[in-house]
């Protein structure tokens, strides 16, 4: 049976993984990991060495990541990530409710590939439901926005 195709760049991934492991090892050494087995750095050093060994094994391994025929980062996912970052960034300024409404309306429209009244209504109803459940029932404090003060 043919080996399943690996996701592009899967082997290269072991390089940043190894670099991350190296950071952990260096912090372990800085904290005296080699000086005493009970030092604050001993356990991070062990964890870092395990990560480094695993990163090497991942780089040399045959199964370097599942390819499922879908794009790793479709435009829709990338755009949703960007919207999400925008939503969180806007929250302290304009408040949770408007930010969440705008995010939901935009993200639902994006996923459906069309701007529709339905998306706007779902967004409005969802924000109202979140307010009822979380603000009123669970008494979660949500940012109100500095812009409206």
């Amino acid at each position: 049976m043919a080996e399943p195709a690996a996701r592009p760049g899967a082997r290269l991934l072991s390089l940043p993984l190894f670099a991350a492991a190296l950071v952990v090892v260096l912090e372990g050494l800085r904290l005296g990991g080699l000086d005493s087995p009970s030092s604050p750095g001993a356990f991070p050093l062990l964890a870092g060495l395990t990560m480094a060994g695993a990163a090497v094994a991942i780089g040399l391994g045959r199964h370097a990541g599942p390819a499922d025929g879908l794009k790793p980062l479709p435009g829709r996912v990338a755009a949703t990530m960007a919207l999400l970052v925008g939503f969180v960034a806007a929250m302290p300024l304009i408040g949770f409710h408007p930010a969440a409404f705008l995010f939901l309306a935009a993200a639902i429209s994006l996923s459906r590939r069309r701007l529709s009244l339905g998306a706007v209504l779902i967004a409005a109803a969802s924000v109202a439901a979140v307010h009822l459940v979380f603000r009123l029932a669970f008494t979660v404090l949500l940012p109100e926005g500095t812009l409206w003060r």
Partner: protein
Amino acid sequence: MTAGHLLTSWLDPSLFAATALGTLAGIWIGAIPGLSVTMAVSILVSFTFAWPLEPALALMAGVFTGGVYGGSRSAILLNIPGAPAAIATALDGYPMARRGEAGAAIGLTTLASFLGGMIGVAALALGAPAIAEVAILFAPRDYLLLAVLGLLLVGSLSGESLAKGLFAAGLGVTLGVVGLDPMTAEPRFTYGSVALLGGIPYIAAMIGFFGVAEALAQLRLADAETVRQRIGRIVPPRAALRRHLPLALRASGIGVAIGALPGTGGDIAALMAYDHARRSTRTPTHPFGTGAEEGVVAPEAANNAAVGGAYIPMLTLGIPGDAVTAVLIGALYVHGLKPGPMLMIETPHLFWFTVGNLTLANVALLAFGLAGARAFARIAEVPRAVLVPLILVLSVVGTFAIRNSLADVWWMLGFGITGYALRLYGFQPGPIILGMILGPLMDASWRRAVIAAGDDVLGAAVEATESAISLVLIAAIVLIALRSFSWGKGRKALPPTPHP
């Protein structure tokens, strides 16, 4: 008598409602394709941090129980397991639905889940007090060995390669020790940042890895069309119940045992029970893989039995049984509790309260599962294009609710996007979260064990060989390591989630 607390959540209307609503929410979320019970628990428990302890515990028990069961709905109706624990259920559940027997499959899974869940709770009630008594005898090295065993198990079973599992576990352990060292107050991995001195907020990490990362991964499948199935008779005939009872009991036993092992959970239990059913059933109703009733009974009994099983190491040792109990341990810490043998000794009423909660959750599961079969079928068809943005908003609200901190929300987003990338390359979030929870425990246990032996690693190793508990744990670690050691080689792991 502390066992009297078994009935607390049955008699108090608000606790009864919290458990029942939690179960309903768990089934609802579990029924939605791709939304795991870990995600449900991660997001929902974040709203309970301002609550008193009892209703929070009640809600968690309900969500966990309902979520594991709810995953079977989309597995049967859409061939998309609602949770990893329902992967095995899809193998025969979906062919049953295609044959027009969706109602029968739902009925059987509901009864099997109820039976398995009750057996899991009975095992918790009977086994946990005994284990807690033994756990008092555990030395720090035993906790270290137990944590290593858990990470090794979850690392080797939850992904395509042990190397990826170990890397993820190492990463989690590292994230877990960020902040001031509890023994020397020396900053670790803080790089001069005052914000990092208190450590990384692990609930935010959990919501990121399980909520945002999963939601974004589901968005990749937003174009997949859903298929409607006809639901006929739900309650199975008595003859079918009699026929499947012995298998359901055996599968429940498997579920309890696997669930009680640190690091393993309902998904492994369900697959092992399915394998057992396939090997032990000479004349299934249909060949396995084409709609055998035994193929839905065994995994569903096992994965719900694993819920009670997973509570055993969590409450008695403070070691998570699986990813969900890792999240629950995080939640218990936030509520000021420290799971472990002393929890069982100092606050036994909470243990019996939890047993009562889980029992109530299983009864609620049976009622909602049978009565709401058709309603839950519609939930499974909610389009991802609407669902995913809603989950993302809930993840933001949930994270913010923990400490009213926007910094936590940014952490959560960072972990979510990182988790999405890691998931694409076959890294599972389970070992990371388990590592985060177990990291501080392992660090402290390692250092206490070494200090007790005069700062001598060799001395600590020799001491370990003189303890029966340590020897058993070492033997288990060696056995698992030898069985799963295949650095870089492809290994048979959990089957991939099927898509329609």
